[in-house]
């Protein structure tokens, strides 16, 4: 069983601040991290590897510095790593990204199982995983929190609106992972990171994966960003302050006035 795990390096969006005067993002000093959902996908793959002895490949697409998330995957136990890095990929939307990643998976040869986070915290689209599955012509199971392998069959628990489902699918298949409540992220120790530097690591260009340039980057992306702007500022609230007692009385008065409690 060969598992490919797709990971993305993302800015830690919880650390992003906005310049109140210009309304623009303050990007300096924002740390880069592995997308948390992808981290869980990696750990899921490691769990399957432990039980069933699978081969695990980590794949990412990004600038050269995205090597760190691939390396982290290998430090956590993946057997090898691939970074798709080429100026031709720059500006890819979810369509072009899923096209490139699908091409890379094809180049890996016989991959039985593909895992990815349900979405990346910088884009929040949840589109790249299903897009890849379509490009590869394999079934997808999105928003999973648990996967068990039973021979060539996978049994997964996935979210649906208002509940969950247990589903079954044969390999090859693609799964996108949510983070279950009891999930604790594991980070590699220094020695594991050091040892992982000896594992096979490849950087592939667009040509290496046989991707057609017209489907890549900005040019190949069906969506275009027309404008980026700060969120709309609305009319300011009716403000009040004072002591805690006064504030509480005031809120009570508002709730009466707006008919949330009886007068």
């Amino acid at each position, binding site marked *: 069983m060969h598992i490919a795990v797709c990971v993305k390096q993302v800015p830690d*969006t*919880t650390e*992003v601040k*906005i310049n109140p005067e210009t309304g*623009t*993002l303050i990007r300096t000093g924002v740390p880069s991290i592995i997308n948390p959902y992808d981290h869980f996908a990696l750990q899921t793959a490691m769990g399957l590897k432990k039980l069933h002895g699978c081969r695990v490949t980590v794949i990412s697409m990004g600038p050269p510095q995205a090597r760190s998330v691939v390396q982290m995957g290998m430090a956590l136990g993946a057997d090898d790593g691939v970074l798709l890095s080429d100026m031709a990929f720059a500006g890819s939307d*979810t*369509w072009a990204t899923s096209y490139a990643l699908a091409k890379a998976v094809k180049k890996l040869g016989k991959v039985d199982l593909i895992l990815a986070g349900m979405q990346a*915290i910088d*884009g*929040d*689209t*949840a*589109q790249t*995983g*299903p897009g890849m599955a*379509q490009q590869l*012509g*394999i*079934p*997808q199971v*999105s928003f999973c929190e648990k996967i068990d392998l039973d021979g060539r069959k996978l*049994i997964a628990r996935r979210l*649906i*609106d*208002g*509940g*969950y*489902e*247990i*589903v*079954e*699918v044969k390999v090859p*298949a693609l799964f996108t992972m949510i*983070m279950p*409540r009891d999930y604790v992220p594991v980070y590699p120790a220094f020695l594991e990171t050091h040892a992982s530097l000896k594992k096979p690591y490849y950087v592939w260009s667009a040509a290496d994966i046989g991707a057609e340039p*017209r489907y890549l980057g900005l040019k190949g992306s*069906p*969506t*275009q960003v*027309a404008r*980026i*702007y*700060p*969120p*709309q*500022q*609305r009319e300011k*609230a*009716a*403000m*009040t*302050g*004072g002591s*805690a*007692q006064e*504030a509480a009385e005031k*809120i009570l008065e*508002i709730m009466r006035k707006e008919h*949330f409690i009886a007068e």
Partner: protein
Amino acid sequence: MINVSKKCIGCNKCVPVCPFAAIQLIEKKAVINEACTLCGACVQVCPVTAIEITREEAAARDLSGYRGVWVFVELMEGSDKAGSPRKIRPVVFELLSAGRRLADELGEELSAVLLTDKNPGFEKELGAYGADKVYLVENPELHEYNTDIFATAIIALTHKHKPSAMLYGATIMGRDLAPRVASCLYTGLTADCTALAIKDGLLLQSRPAFGGNIMADILSPGSRPQMATVRPNVMKLAEPIYGKVAVTVREEIKIDKNLRRVKVLERNLERGNGGVKLEDARIIVSGGRGMKTREKFKVLEELSRLLGGVVGASRAAVDLGLKEKAHQVGQSGTTVSPKLYLSFGISGAVQHIVGMKASDVIVAVNKDPNAPIFSVAKYGVVGDAHEIAPKLIEALKKSKA
């Protein structure tokens, strides 16, 4: 363009899967005829990847024949397979309300796409909320949602009728289905739009970007249909006009059982979100990073109980472990629109604000008079949440007594 390469082994898997009977086996090779709509169902099942669909270049695509706005009609899953007819998910009516506006501006039709095993007359409700037409596929295989089956059907319908735009609810189902369709059609898809408009004949899609810290306007100029998903409770619901029934257009699409590659073994609809019903809540009492500890957060739970509300939390509060993820309000949690949204210690990152700004009345308590939450609140209270919340509980109890 669709091509069958020499790799074809004549296994016959693609022939029954084709919804349009467009494939025949001739001399042990698959041969594709004119009935093909490039839906890709055969590509999905070919074990030797012998069938390939090559997409035309974006710039060279002829977009002139694409007209009309479509809305995908999501039905709620039943817990048993042979149960009573399912209900339309409320987000569909919100999408129709928004879609009506877009269609009027374009001077085109608004259509609903309904895939189901049985239609108990949904065209009445769909018409009341603005649909001119309902494209109905009625087939026993559509008794529950399945990614491959639904995607194949929608792809076939879009090839046949060429809509200019298509909207889906950004529900779990919509977010599973839409990217699959967009990927096959090589068309643009914008997730979680918070506003939709028409600009120079194109669908202008606005959404928060970069973790919800900034807004982006997105266009898909070179591909059709222009597709977007929209969260529940984001678009304003129009007043229904009962009596305006949408015209039903029946579509026959053959669905082969082999397309059902993912099988549902069990479905549980009760315990999904830990019983937290933020989406339909009338009152939400919500806490942020400012609540500091899990212990201190509990005061909001008491307040919420007193008001008959539901407890919400910001992403920061959830990340700090003050409250479970099921309570998260915002772009990456649940989008809400209660009558009253009472927030404590939430500064108001964009990603939070887009998830609650549709609330009727927002009352925000925060220490920082410049907190962005005050820009969406109707009433702002500058003060310490830890002191004010207990006093409010006290005052509420007194007023009830």
